[in-house]
């Protein structure tokens, strides 16, 4: 067994996993605030990445203008999706809400394919693509940057939920909507805000993936990979989402290694997380950090 290769795989896994973690956090954010499972999280990434790509290539905007414009668009987009689609479904059974987001997911995926085509498009070079060597391992500078960005987003989340007024309002809403309302928290505003933040953060992740490996509709598969991550970490734990993302990232790289060395099944990168998912659901359905839901009559 070559240790260097293994270490390299773990590192790759951590880099990809950090991105999964970011998307998982934005998924958990929506779930915590409004009890909605967003099956369209991957499409949020996709839309963010395409809009940014469009602004940078068709309008020739520099990155430092195009990127904020894209994020502003995603803020509005998240609010609109929440108000138009999810708000009428408040009080409906969980299944209806799940299916509405599933509908959103295929709608936007098809819309993006229609508008931008099915082929992967490269981002204009924003950062110099260099290979750095760190402790004898080869890393592209873009990957390091994405790792740093993920860390910044995580810190931002931590600050937002511990210190800012809106973050505290959001936590209060997640804890008990009626109590939060009676304390003067506007619950509809919190819902809209959680969708906006989630859309923006997903878009950042989408742009990072787009910069690294081009934008294509395959990007929305990240949104599906998020499920193993959030189930692993527990659906209502933001830290758990991050950790679950990292574990899934490492797991799929290791699975690929095992597959290439011994099994030769192919496609294990994509499937291994789902085997893990079924196992976790059988053993520990509320994840590593999720709160166990005890129902009393």
């Amino acid at each position, binding site marked *: 067994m070559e240790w260097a290769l293994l270490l390299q795989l773990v590192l790759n896994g951590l880099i990809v996993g950090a991105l999964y973690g970011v998307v998982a956090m934005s998924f958990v954010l929506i779930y915590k605030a409004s009890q909605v499972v967003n099956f369209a999280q991957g499409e949020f990434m996709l839309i963010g990445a395409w809009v940014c790509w469009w602004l940078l290539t068709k309008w020739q905007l520099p990155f430092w203008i195009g990127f904020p414009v894209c994020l502003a668009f995603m803020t509005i987009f998240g609010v609109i999706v929440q108000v138009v689609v999810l708000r009428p479904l408040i009080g*409906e059974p969980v299944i209806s809400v799940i299916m509405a987001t*599933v509908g959103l997911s295929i709608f936007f995926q*098809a*819309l993006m394919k229609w508008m931008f085509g099915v082929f992967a498009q490269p981002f204009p070079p924003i950062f110099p693509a260099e290979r750095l060597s760190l402790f004898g391992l080869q890393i592209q500078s873009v990957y390091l940057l994405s790792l740093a960005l993920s860390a910044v987003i995580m810190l931002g989340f931590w600050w937002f939920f511990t210190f800012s007024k809106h973050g505290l309002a959001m936590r209060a809403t997640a804890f008990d909507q009626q109590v939060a309302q009676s304390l003067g928290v506007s619950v509809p505003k919190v819902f809209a805000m959680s969708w906006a933040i989630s859309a923006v953060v997903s878009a950042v992740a989408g742009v990072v993936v787009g910069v690294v490996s081009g934008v294509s509709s395959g990007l929305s598969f990240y949104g599906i990979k998020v*499920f193993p991550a959030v189930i692993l970490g527990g659906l209502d734990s933001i830290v758990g989402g991050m950790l679950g993302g990292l574990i899934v990232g490492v797991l799929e790289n290791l699975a690929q290694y095992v597959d290439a060395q011994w099994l030769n099944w192919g496609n294990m990168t994509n499937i291994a997380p789902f085997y893990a998912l079924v196992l976790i*659901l*059988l053993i520990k359905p509320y994840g590593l950090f999720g709160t166990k839901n005890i129902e009393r009559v």
Partner: protein
Amino acid sequence: MSMTPSGDFRTSYAADMTIFPTRNSRLALLIGLAVLLCAPLVLGRYELSLMIQIGFLGIAALGLNILVGFTGQISIGHAAFFGFGAFASAWLVEHGVPVPLAIPLAGVATALVGLVFGLPAARLKGLYLAIATLAAQFILEDFFARARWFTGGVAGRITEPFTLLGLRFDHDETYFYVVVFWVVVMFVAAANLMRSRDGRALVAVRDHYLSAELMGINLAYYRTLSFGIASFYAGVGGALYAHYLLFVSVEAFNILFSIQFLAMVIIGGLGSVMGSLMGAAFMVLMPELVQSAAQALEGGAIDRALSLGASINFLREMAIGAAIILFLIFEPDGLARRWRLMKAYWKLYPYSH
């Protein structure tokens, strides 16, 4: 001419449980069946092929409706089970099982696979189950691509047409009867299931699972059972699909197809047996409508601006997504409710107010 009695005159449980409450509705059923059986003599190939599609998709959608609409469990992996049924039937036929027998056997095999994936369902509900079935979808899809002995791998699997007593049902005109037979059998079975103790237990699990459990309904048993039934229906639908197209390809049973099944159930009406068929009809006819709309606009300014012709598949997918969302928001009970309203309107005609 009423299809429904104009009041509540039921004095026995048996009268309360009848599927067709008046003589007229029973007559309408017989006439409807007779008309349906004459359809191949009148209709062209194209209409018949649409009806056959509605038939086998409707059977699978009914299975999903038993799971989602009656038991309140969700599955985002129904197409994978549909596909498993198709491959199982093709595999059985290659190993010497005659096609008429292979179709129900494929259903049983799919039910067994469904039970395996349904085991987590015994403990899970709502969103955890949604995610578990999503995993089942990807695991089965991966299995299809890998298990060459079973599916023929990437090349797919060719199978034989339906033959019975020396007759070959390999045209739309003849295969139509096979599908109609299975549709009638499966829909009658489902309608009767819902009148039985087991069917009521499923509905009780959906409405309030804690109360159901307190009343002595074994939750794990009924949740797993409904998964098995749903998979059985999916398997039979898939087998009919296989012997209609005579070729089963690995790529067909992706997540989009699973979502289409969900859409059929929502559009038709959750918890309605006939709604499943209406939903399937909607999902089969809507893409045709989108296509003809795009063709009508062909060459016009809109077509040139949006390149409709080249992106017809995306338009279809968008229409599916939009239909799911719009029905959930504006008509959560689906087409079945519209149908009930129409019947209620005609019940007292012309004195409806």
